[in-house]
């Protein structure tokens, strides 16, 4: 167990280090002179030189990396070229909105996927099953940048129940959370179905039925808890899709989170902010996966962990 703990944490730290390297290199992928791209061709040579110095782009690559890395250790992500503010402050401002949206979307996703997956598994090969899985296939195939505008059209413009965009009032989260949550629910429902199906064939399910439990009780108290365990790690992985999809969904709804910050920064050619946003989201993703893995190990002591 300790061995698992240590290797898992070490590999997460290694992944974070790798992510830092890739994010650092991002600015060097810009074709041509990055300073010229950021400031525009008409910028004064002195301005260009001072930005080059500020970003350390005149130094050799390994020195640049070391400076970038030291900055990160001090939580110094540089300043935004567009607003001139410290990037850390920008991130802190935007994180709550993304966190809130992700959390509500997660609740929507679980609330939709749990009954769908469960019913589909218990009533396998019935119209209920086909209906639930059909919904899942649809949910997987509807891109969120189409579902978002459709929800705006119906829920905001036609019915007028929800605001079109932004984060004002309690009900502004409904449409973006539905957009993100449905996409996630589709994949989740498929997983829950196959996981429950697997458990339904176990010996202890027959025992539960044999000792006289109603089938509802047997499914809810014996099958579901065992089926949910493997879902947990997949849920962590799914969160990556959620965070990636949140970038587009936040753009659709002008939701003031990290994703929108990143897209705005790309449009303003404010690359230090782009780097910081990518880093922030990716590190969150790594940490969430680490936590779900540890939680899984803690919840299910049967599992023998291998370090592949």
């Amino acid at each position: 167990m300790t061995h698992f703990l240590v290797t898992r944490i070490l590999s997460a730290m290694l992944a974070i280090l790798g992510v830092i390297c890739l994010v650092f290199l991002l600015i060097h992928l810009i074709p041509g002179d990055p300073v010229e791209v950021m400031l525009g061709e008409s910028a004064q040579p002195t301005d260009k030189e001072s930005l080059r110095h500020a970003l350390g782009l005149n130094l050799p690559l390994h020195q640049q990396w070391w400076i970038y890395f030291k900055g990160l250790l001090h939580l110094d992500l540089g300043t935004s070229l567009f607003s001139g503010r410290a990037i850390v402050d920008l991130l802190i401002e935007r994180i709550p909105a993304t966190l809130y949206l992700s959390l509500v979307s997660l609740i929507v996703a679980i609330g939709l996927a749990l009954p769908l997956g469960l019913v589909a598994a218990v009533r396998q090969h019935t119209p209920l099953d086909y209906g639930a899985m059909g919904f899942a296939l649809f949910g997987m195939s509807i891109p969120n940048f189409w579902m978002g505008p459709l929800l705006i059209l119906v829920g905001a413009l036609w019915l007028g129940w929800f605001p079109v965009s932004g984060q004002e009032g309690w009900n502004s989260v409904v449409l973006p959370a539905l957009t993100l949550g449905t996409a996630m629910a589709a994949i989740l429902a498929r997983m829950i179905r196959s996981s429950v199906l697997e458990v339904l064939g176990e010996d202890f399910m027959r025992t539960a039925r044999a000792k006289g439990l109603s089938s509802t009780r047997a499914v809810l108290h014996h099958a579901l808890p065992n089926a949910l365990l493997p879902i947990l790690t997949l849920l962590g992985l799914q969160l990556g899709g959620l965070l990636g999809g949140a970038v587009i969904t936040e753009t659709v709804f002008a939701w003031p989170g990290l994703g929108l910050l990143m897209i705005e920064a790309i449009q303003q050619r404010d690359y230090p902010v782009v780097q910081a946003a990518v880093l922030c989201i990716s590190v969150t993703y790594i940490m969430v996966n680490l936590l779900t893995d540890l939680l899984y190990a803690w919840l299910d002591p049967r599992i023998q962990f291998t370090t592949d």
Partner: protein
Amino acid sequence: MRLWLPLSIVASWAFLAIFLPLFSLTPDAIDLTNILSPPSLEHWLGHDDLGRPVADRLISGAQTSFFVSLCVVALGVSLGGILGVSSAYLSGWVDAVFVRMVDIMLAFPGLLLAIALAGALGPGIGNVILALGIVGWVGYARLARGQVLALKHADHVLAAQAIGAPPWRIILRHLLPLIMAPLIVEASFGIAGAIIAEAGLSFLGLGVQPPAASWGSMIRDGTRYMLVAPHLVIFPGLTLMAVVLAANMLGDWLRDRLDVKEQSSRRKS
């Protein structure tokens, strides 16, 4: 039904994309008398904010998505396949480095890295393919590696080694043919993912540039006129969804047909 409906959708998508030059379409023709005009008998799908025919632009967008998704999947399968197979077969430090590399790539949430890459590289169809390809190879590589690990001690591989076959020959003749089925299944889901990803990048303004048409940029442009001309958003979205749904259904069908176990590594935007 499970095969023919999705197959016909995907086939017509491919047909329209490949033979686009044969139809006399005018996706860029501006007609100021027809701005935002709704669907009519002459123009089935109406006109957009510049009076361009939506139907023609949809077909032109089909070509964009077809070209991009085909290139992205081809790039991903060949690069990922080669890297994954050689890593598993050579094992040792090569494999250890490879596994770390894959772990780092997977540490980024799916589409996020592609958006950042496309943002850094700048807009344009070539950069979209590059960005999605860089992100996309990882899944195939991991799949190929896992398959080869399970196969490399099989009797026929040992026999080939015993008669002195060189590694490249063993990989090409004795391993690759056996791992094609799961790769093909993964690739068909990959097509669906790449179509959505291309449209997503174009929706964000990071894909093909105007006046070229993409389903994603058509949806983005249409959202501005949603109340007066909802057809500008509805038709490109419906087309996109139909093709993606068909590709996913084909993938499901192929998986059942080729008897491949479901992969949990699948990503979605």
